[in-house]
């Protein structure tokens, strides 16, 4: 089971691009990388998932280098409503394996 390491907290300003990096040195061949967003008193919400290179959806991009030992969640032009905790998870999609949520990155956006 691959362990992940993320910064505890980050600050940015409205309109800026925010990049949150996650380290997962022991990622396995079958593991995918998934990011979640959590607001206070709510359950985490799925943001994006990828295996390699780059994935983009309507809210974020996920960059994964060739060695897959890290990944970067990119949030374009953040707003105050992007203030939340962001979790990086690594796991095998094909089996009911254990999923571990770390402490995440607390992102604070200022006006």
């Amino acid at each position, binding site marked *: 089971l691959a362990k992940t390491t993320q910064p505890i907290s980050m600050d940015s300003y409205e309109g800026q691009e925010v990049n949150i990096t996650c380290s997962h040195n022991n990622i396995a061949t079958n593991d995918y990388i998934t990011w979640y967003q959590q607001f206070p*008193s709510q*359950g985490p919400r799925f943001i994006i998932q990828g295996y390699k290179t780059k994935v983009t959806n309507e809210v974020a991009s996920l960059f994964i280098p060739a060695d897959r030992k890290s990944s970067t969640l990119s949030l374009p032009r953040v707003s105050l409503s992007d203030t939340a905790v962001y979790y990086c998870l690594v796991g095998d999609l094909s089996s009911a394996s254990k999923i571990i949520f770390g402490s995440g990155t607390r992102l604070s956006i200022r006006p």
Partner: protein
Amino acid sequence: SQTIHQWPATLVQPVGSPLSLECTVEGTSNPNLYWYRQAAGRGLQLLFYSVGIGQISSEVPQNLSASRPQDRQFILSSKKLLLSDSGFYLCAWSASLGDQPQHFGDGTRLSIL
């Protein structure tokens, strides 16, 4: 579309009392179901998961138990609550063939007095 419901949203219970939290999923069949607990300012701790009716895997030894009486129903129980059981309890589901992405309910804030 699939939806997940948890209730109650908030619960205050005395030490030593029983607990029953319910979670139901709609719009999907044979989901994987999960119970998590989150302490204030911390990450999520997986308590139980289930891949089918009557199948429960326990991840953390404690005085809590889980049951899955129906395909889309997941129940978290305790016979006697402890102060340390306070926290934010989240139910989640994922597609039957994998763990991610997981889709979470709105949680139950449990306070033990």
